[in-house]
Structure formats: C-alpha cells, structure tokens
C-alpha cells in the first residue's frame, strides 16, 4: 500500500524534531520536544503523540498529534491545557521512539544483520508523520553529531565524493529493546522470514536478555533449526534459561545428533530433566547417541535413516519413503539391510527413481559400499568423503550391522573452521 497524497511530501528526521521549540497559537514558547510516540500500524507507523517538557521542571507531557498545527522551525500547537494531558507511559500498540528505538539495536531482516539506529526518517503528508525509514549509515551518525554539513562539504571539496545514506525500510526492521515488541505477530513473521543460519548469527551477537526474548518469540520449529546453527556455548546458555518442558519441545525438533551433542554439553541434572520431558522414542534414540564418544564416528552419526529389506520392490520402497521421509532431516540414500540389520547395499534416490518400479531392491542396489565403524576417527571420515565424493557414510558395528549414518553436513562443521579466515 503506497501513501498517496496530493500536497507536497516532505521527509523529516527524528533528530531534527527532538529538541524543537514548542509554541502555542500565539507563538509563545511552552516547552521543547523530548520524544515522539507512534502507533504500530502497518505498513508505516504513524506519530500519535508528542512528548514535551516545559523546561524548568523535569515533568513531561503527552500531547496528541492532532493538536499540532505545523512543524516548521517550531512545533506549533493548538490551544490545550496541560491538565488534560496524560502521563507519559506507553500504551498498548504504541512506542516512544527515542526511548525504544533511537541509538538501540534492531534487526535488519532483509540484510540479516544487527544494526544500530542512528536516526529515523518520517514522511510528512497531510500533517501526519509516517515512520518510513531507519537510518543506520554514517551520514545519520554525523547528523546526530552535528557534523553532517561540514563532512559533506569536506568530501565534496576534497574528493568530489558524496557519501550515500544507508536507510532500511521499516518493513524490514525488527526492534529488540522491549520484549513486548517481540511478542507482536508482525515480529514473529519478520524474524521467521530469515534463514535459521542468519538468525543464529544474530542471536549470537545479542546480549543475554535480548537473546532470550528473541528466542522465545520464535515458533518451536524455527527455534530448533536456529538452535542447530548456533555456537555450542550459546546453545547451552539459551537452554539453561528455558524450563525443561520448553527445552524438550525444541530439542525434539532438532536432528538427533545435534540434540545429543547439545545434551552432552549441559550439566547432567539438567540434561536428565529435559530427557524425561521428551517423547519416549526420541529420548531413547538420543540416549543411545549420548553413550557414544563424541570425537569418533559414533558422535557424528544420526540414527535416523531409511532402510529397507532386499526383497522390497522399487515401487514399494518409493511408497515407503513417501511415508517415512517426513521424519528424516536427510534423505538422499536408502540402505538395504537383512532381517538382522546387516548392511547389504545402498541406492541413491536418483537411482531409485530411474529404476523399473517392479524391480527388486537386491537386484538394483549398489553393493560396493563405503562404510566406517563406530570407532573411526574424524579425520579419516573426512578423507573418505573427499575421496568418494558421497553425501553420507553408513556406520556399522564389528558384525557389519547398520548403526547409523554420518551426513556430509555434520563433517563439514568440523572441517570448515580449518579452511582459514
């Protein structure tokens, strides 16, 4: 929805309005502007009230924006009595801009970055102020420091260079300073638009209070995906702040080996508390993984994989995948195992899709399998991935029985930090 007005449209900055002289109809000074309140309406918040301080005392008064006659060199107000004004406390759906936004950190959901607000830009139309942009650039900082004109003149004269503004449209801004702002429906939509990996980066940069607030505003699924991407140290600190039942809901949604790694890092009593809150079968799987050494193959693998008996036909297998792949975080290969879980062969999904539907898996499968044992060292596993160019490696016990699968992504987390800055 675009703003459409016939009279001239003017852009104004918050920094230009704060501190402005407030006068009455007769141009007599009654105070100066200390803050503006906006109603949080979509797409652009509208200024609803102006906060003014009469000067001498520290008292502040809220005046409705409808009383404002003009915003020029001064802010001229229609007649009103100070007694009518309410006390300056923010109401539902309303925020004070200087108090909650200016100089504070916000999330730029489009650029997936944490930014600091240097200034706010309004569009003035029909005597209403619409908050349209957040200024995060160097020019905004210079405007606040009172150095913008000298800086522009200097750059122009010395290098014939014009510094550009860095504005972010309001629709991509998520304020963080008040937990209430994160509970809004809009906030959840904006944050969940970001990729969990970006969200995780932002969460790592936040302070502890903001971190908890942002995290709790996410839905369980996004929270789990985000948590998987977060630094282990911060994972632990986030989980410590949650109740066991909240934590277990999120951890259940994580992939099994990520969940096991996280629980292994928690203090014992807390990990046990969370496990007891989790669904029985997931908790069992996680416990199995927890028992394995983290540094070896066992600690890298997940126990969720697709395995089918050799006598199944391709068509039946595809149907089965339809049902089961929902619960997998990775489904690229199927493994063919006998009734005692002995690994016989494997097929990629591509091979499966191009095979005749009535063919038996045992006739179609690839029997040249690359597998490792639970005790295999990480470095060796990385070498196997590189040598064979595969997406996942099955893990077997001494008897060649299938235990789990190491997914390429999990080994990447170990290798990537060594790739240099």
């Amino acid at each position: 929805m675009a703003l459409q007005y016939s009279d001239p449209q003017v852009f104004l900055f918050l920094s230009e309005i704060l501190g402005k002289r407030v006068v009455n109809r007769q141009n007599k000074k009654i105070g100066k502007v200390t803050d503006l309140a906006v109603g949080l309406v979509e797409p652009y918040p509208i200024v609803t009230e102006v906060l003014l301080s009469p000067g001498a005392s520290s008292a502040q008064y809220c005046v409705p924006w409808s009383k404002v006659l003009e915003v020029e060199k001064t802010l001229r107000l229609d007649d009103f009595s100070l007694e009518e004004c309410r006390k300056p406390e923010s109401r539902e759906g309303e925020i004070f801009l200087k108090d909650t936004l200016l100089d504070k950190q916000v999330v730029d959901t489009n650029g997936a970055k944490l930014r600091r607000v240097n200034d706010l830009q309004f569009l003035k139309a029909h005597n209403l102020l619409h908050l349209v942009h957040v200024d995060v650039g160097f020019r905004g900082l210079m405007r606040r420091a009172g150095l913008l004109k000298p800086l522009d003149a200097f750059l122009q004269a010395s290098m014939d260079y014009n510094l550009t503004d860095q504005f972010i449209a309001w629709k991509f801004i998520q304020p963080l300073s008040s937990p209430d702002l994160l509970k809004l429906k809009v906030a959840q939509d904006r944050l969940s638009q970001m990729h969990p990996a970006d969200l995780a980066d932002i969460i790592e940069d936040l302070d502890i209070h903001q971190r908890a607030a942002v995290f709790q505003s996410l839905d369980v699924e996004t929270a789990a995906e985000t948590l998987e991407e977060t630094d282990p140290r911060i994972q632990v600190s986030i989980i410590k702040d949650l109740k066991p039942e909240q934590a277990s809901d999120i951890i259940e949604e994580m992939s099994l080996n990520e969940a096991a790694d996280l629980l292994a890092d928690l203090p014992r009593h807390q990990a046990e508390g969370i496990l007891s809150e989790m669904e029985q079968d997931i908790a069992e799987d996680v416990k199995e993984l927890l028992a394995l050494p983290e540094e070896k193959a066992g600690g890298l693998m997940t126990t969720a994989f697709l395995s089918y008996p050799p006598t199944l036909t391709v068509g039946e297998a595809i149907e089965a995948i339809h049902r089961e792949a929902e619960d997998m975080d990775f489904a690229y290969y199927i493994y063919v195992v006998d009734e005692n879980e002995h690994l016989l062969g494997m097929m990629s999904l591509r091979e499966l899709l191009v095979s005749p539907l009535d063919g038996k898996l045992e006739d179609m499968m690839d029997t040249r399998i690359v597998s490792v044992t639970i005790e295999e060292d990480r470095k060796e596993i990385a070498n196997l991935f590189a040598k064979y160019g595969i997406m996942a490696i099955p893990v077997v016990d001494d008897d060649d029985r299938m235990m789990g699968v190491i997914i390429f992504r999990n080994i990447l987390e170990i290798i990537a930090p060594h790739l240099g800055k």
Partner: protein
Amino acid sequence: MISGIFRTRFWITLSVFFALVGPGIITSNVDNDAGGITTYSLAGADYGLTLLWILVPITFALIIIQEMCARMGVVTGKGLSDLIRERFGAKITFYLMIILFLTNLGNTIAEFAGVAASMEIFGVSKYISVPIAAFLVWLLVVKWNYKSVEKVFLVACLFYLSYIVSGIMGEPDWHQIGTSFVNPSVQFDPGYLAMAVGLVGTTIAPWMQFYLQSSVVDKGIRTSEYRYTRIDVIVGSFTVNVVAFFIIMLCAVTLFQNGIRIETAKDAALALEPLAGKYSSLLFAFGLLNASLFAASILPLSTAYTICEAFGWESSVNHKFVEAPQFYGLYSFMIFLGAGIILLPQFPLIWIMYYSQVLNGLLLPVILIFMLLLINDRRLMGRYTNGWAMNIISWLTVSAQVILSLAMVISLIWEA
C-alpha cells in the same frame, strides 16, 4: 566422608573460578604497561619509599571502579560503550569515542616506544624490533581466535613475576619498607604531588573500563557466577599493585639511595646493573618488553571493539576481514601508525605523551560519572544497582578521581 564432599566441592569451585578467570586479571595487568612502569620507576628513583603508601588507596579505588564495570557487564550483558550510547545518545558518544581513540593511540605509541627501549637493552635495533613486534601483534588477532589470544594474555600476566624476582634481587630492607607503609610521609612540594597524581592516573585509565566490561560480556558470565568475577577483579587489582610495589621499591633502594636520576624505564634498567646485578637489570628490561607487547596487543583491540560497539559496526575477532572492515581497519591503523611513528628519526614522543595524558585526564571524569549513573539505573540493573553504602564509597572514590584527573590536566597545562 564430610571432608570428601568438601574436597570435591572445593575443586568444583576452583575449576569454575579458573574457567571464568581472566577479564579482571588481564585488564589490571595491562595497566602496568610501558607508561606505568616508567611512572613507577620515576616515583621510586625520585622520591624513594615515600610514595609507596599511595598504592593502598589506589588498590582500593581500582577494586571499587572495576567491580562496578564487571557487575554492569554481567547484569546487562552489554559493553560500556553500548550502554553509554543507548543512555546518553549518539552525539556525546561520538565525541567521547574520538577522544578515546586519540588517547589510546597515544598510549599505543608509548607501548611501541617501550618495545624499542627494552630491546635496545638486549642490543636489538628498534628498526628490527618494532616492525616485528607490530606484525606479531597484528597477526595475533587477525589470524587467531580470541580464546587462544586470551590464553596468551594470561601467560603474559605471569611474566610480570619478573619484576618481583628482580625486586627481591635488589636486597631491600624490609623493615624500612614496612615503616613507610605504617607511617606514610606526605610531602607538599609540587613535584611530589604531581608524581602522586601521575601514579593514580596511570593505574586507572578510561580504556580499562571498556575492555573489562566487554571481556566479561564476551565470557558470557551469568549473575549466578558473578561472585567468581568479583574475585577475579579483586585478585587482578591486588596483583597489579604488588608489581607496582616491587618496581617502586627496587628503584627506591637502588637508584634513589645512590642519588641516580633517571628519565625513562630504560634508564632505570641500565642503572640497575651495577647496583642490583646483571640479572636484575635484564629481568627489569624483560618485564618492560613483556608489558609493552602485552599492552600493544590489547589497546588497539580494545579500542576497535569499543568504537565499533558504540556505532553498531561488526566487531568481533571471530569475523573475517571483509565482514568487519571498520573493526580491522581501526585495529590495523592503530598498530601500524603507533609502530610507524616510533621509527621516525626524531619522533616527538614527549609531545605525544603530553597530549595523550591531557585527553586521558579529561575523558576519565566523564566516563566515571557516566558509569555511576548507569549502575544506579534500575531499568538496566534491576536489583543489582549500588546499595547506599556502595554509593557513598563509589561517589567519594570517583570524586577523588575526578579532582585528581583535573588537577593533573591543569598541572600539565601549567607546566607547558
């Protein structure tokens, strides 16, 4: 049985402490940088043991101020420049950061001068030592991650022991030293007072508050673990003054008693050789090298971090160069300019130190007063604001600091 439980609990406590230790001890020790060592040496050489007593109130003030910083870091999870920006706005923060940058740049130059001076004692030309030092310091942060950097810093703290060893080698008269503490002799000549102010000024500097609070935040210390951080801060404040004590004492019992006048820490190290032995002299020089390198690594890092945090730029040693250009730009600029100036044939070190100290003296009062306003802000600190007793103590400490800083600025301008 009971002793068994006690013992495990003791070990758990101890291991938690060592996991959280660092910020306080590192910050305090960096404080004994090239400038600090020079001031201590001069204090001992010019006024003997008469200035030793002042270390007691300095330790006290250091604990009071650092404790508040650490507490703010733990409770708010934000750095000091972040809090100042959010509470006092962009304009004042901008100018504070410019002053902080200039004074820290001045200090960085002094650190590289310290590297040059100490390596010259070992017979290495400054045209070799300073470029190598600058490059190593730069590499430390750009190529490593902070966890390993912090370990290197903690090891550097251990090397300050060289001053204690060196001090004991001076064979001091402990009885006489004890007396100087019990009966502090305060003189009222301008030189003595200026030296006293200088001692306080070199120990409590603006950048430390920013560095301490950021590293506490970086460690992710929780309010329930805060008591360990408090111990960290107190231990740090004590060790820094123990080192200061040994330097002043060594110079007092050797140089002062033999009427030798010195101008720099290098003079002190060289003059020690005939009086306290070759090893004492070399240890003194080694201590100066360690202190200078240590502070030269931390000052630019802390400055870049503080400024980026205030202005909302990417600021982490865990980012790549292109992701955090302002951070690495500021950091590299400070190191290479700081080291480069030292290599100029006739670099104006005295002039630089003079202005850097004036700016320091002007900046500190503002920072300390802001700190007190922030720590008493209930919206930020909740129930962790200062109690009334702590408020009286801290306001008195800060007032004394403010008066001393301004006195130093006035005396510096007067002298010029």
